[in-house]
């Protein structure tokens, strides 16, 4: 193996093992920041040793053993509780006596719980959303600071500071390394799902710059979601979110045209939709529904996405079902954006006049004031109803509100198409 090959192999091992490593250490030292430092120390040791010895057969165990030795040194140096040292030393001795497969089993038994604790602490409400995102990608996604910075288009130092401050906040607040219980659990799960979905969205649709997608973040979010589905299989909304992400990701090959232009859902070549991901998404949705979670917001959004996924052609789309799902969703989580989406579905199911009636009620909504999709939708309905001058005005307004250059071009071309067409179509 060349030096580069070994480096790449070590990076790959890190991606696979780092979250479990940090989680296991965090349980022992009760400090996420220290746990990460110890894990990094183990990585440095690997970078020194493995180019000579080759990557070990059980790299996870090697890293954990190395990190635990350093943890003992650390505890000894910090003169922490003698009891803790004995506990750890005893644990380490017991594991050294066992054969390697037993070590695996011992780690596996505990590690699910530890990973789950790590997930909850990385998304703790005491942290800002930005901090939760950075910490989650760092501790659970195994991304480097540089990778996170590039994904979110900010300087590396910004992310580095964000992570340092986040760890300090968690330490200062004495946030316990535990899985939330009782009434707190639902809310905490919701906050974790929010972080994962935010990461997915960031990857799925850039709002600044010319690129339509940054696919890597979608993969990271999907992976985190799938991991969480195994760690917390009884939580229906976790499966709901995974279903939503799998189905949305299934369209990635169809969303960009040959010139890099965005292709809207109803125009997409459905042969390019990834049926494997659709299948996984529908399975996940079924899991959510079997757990009684059909009314959860993510499950409902996934159900809407599933309606599109099941339609072989755009014309086959069950718009009445989608409109009904949006109506249920609007009752569960009322928001102007949900209403806007409902209006689109209603228009498809019952005609543009019905849709326009709903959208007109949203025109004065403060939350949608600078939201380009509102005038975009309204412009579309007006055009379909032959009110071309009004349609053009709305589409031009929409173009002025979007920060995505390609989207702006799309809207301006739609506006220009309204010129010179009268209501008779001549």
């Amino acid at each position, binding site marked *: 193996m060349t030096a580069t090959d070994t480096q790449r192999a070590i990076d790959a091992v890190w991606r696979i093992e780092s979250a479990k490593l940090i989680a296991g250490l965090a349980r022992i030292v009760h400090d996420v920041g220290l746990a990460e430092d110890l894990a990094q120390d183990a990585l440095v040791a690997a970078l020194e040793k493995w180019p000579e010895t080759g990557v070990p057969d059980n790299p996870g165990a090697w890293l954990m053993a190395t990190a635990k030795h350093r943890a003992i040194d650390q505890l000894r140096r910090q003169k922490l509780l003698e009891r803790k040292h004995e506990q750890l030393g005893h644990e380490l001795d017991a594991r050294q006596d066992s054969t390697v497969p037993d070590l695996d089993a011992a780690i596996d038994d505990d590690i699910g719980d530890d990973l789950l604790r790590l997930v909850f602490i990385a998304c703790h409400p005491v942290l800002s959303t930005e901090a939760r995102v950075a910490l989650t990608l760092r501790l659970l996604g195994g991304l480097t600071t540089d990778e996170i910075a590039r994904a979110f288009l900010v300087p590396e130092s910004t992310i580095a500071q964000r992570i340092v401050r986040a760890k300090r906040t968690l330490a200062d607040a004495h946030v316990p390394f535990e899985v939330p219980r009782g009434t707190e659990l639902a809310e905490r799960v919701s906050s974790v799902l929010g972080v994962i979905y935010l990461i997915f969205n960031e990857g799925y649709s850039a709002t600044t710059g010319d690129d339509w997608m940054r696919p890597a973040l979608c993969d990271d979010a999907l992976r985190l979601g799938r991991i969480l589905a*195994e760690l917390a299989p009884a939580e229906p909304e976790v499966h709901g979110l995974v279903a939503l992400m799998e189905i949305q990701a299934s369209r990635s090959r169809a969303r960009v045209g040959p010139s890099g232009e965005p292709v809207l859902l109803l125009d997409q070549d459905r042969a390019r939709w990834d049926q*494997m991901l659709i299948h996984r998404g529908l399975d996940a949705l079924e899991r959510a529904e079997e757990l009684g979670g059909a009314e959860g917001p993510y499950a409902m959004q996934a159900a809407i996405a599933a309606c599109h996924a099941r339609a072989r052609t755009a014309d086959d789309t069950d718009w009445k079902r989608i409109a009904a799902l949006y109506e249920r969703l609007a009752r569960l989580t009322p928001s102007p954006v949900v209403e806007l989406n409902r209006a689109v579905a209603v228009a498809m199911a019952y005609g543009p006049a019905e849709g326009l009636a709903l959208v007109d009620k949203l025109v004065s909504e403060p939350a949608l004031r600078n939201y380009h*999709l509102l005038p975009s*939708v309204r412009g579309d309905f007006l*055009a379909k109803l032959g009110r071309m001058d009004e349609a053009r005005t709305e589409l031009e307004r929409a173009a002025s509100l979007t920060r995505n250059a390609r989207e702006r071009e799309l809207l301006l071309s739609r506006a220009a198409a309204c010129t010179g067409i009268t209501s008779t179509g001549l």
Partner: protein
Amino acid sequence: MKFMMIIKANKDSEAGVMPSAKLLLAMGKYNEQLVKSGVLLAADGLQASSKGARINFANGKNTVVDGPFAETKELIAGYWIIQVKSKAEAVEWARRVPFDVDGPQSGSGQIEIRQLFEAADFEPELSGSPEGRALLDAEESFRKRTNS
């Protein structure tokens, strides 16, 4: 990135001999690790080539040949499809596939990994004006819900 990990056939798999309990257990744990790590997309075992067939195409005609086929080591016996960040990560997962050291094959075998074609492989040319039609991507606006 998506990779297919292909496990090659051996005398036992071609003879339809079931793997040992020990290997089944190890394989089960391995598959569980793939699922728990969020990387497994799909996996299946393939039955012996004696149950399969080949269709050979030549000069505009095709002929069907029933299995079994001779070149055991080149035949495929199963596959996983995984989603990972790099080829190196796929290699690392492939290295962890369990083989039964105590079994008749003495723990020997082969995994081949192959990358799947994906969106990024169809590099769009950045020229020309965008086309567009007046329809809305309802999901896209919905995704922004958590941010707005």
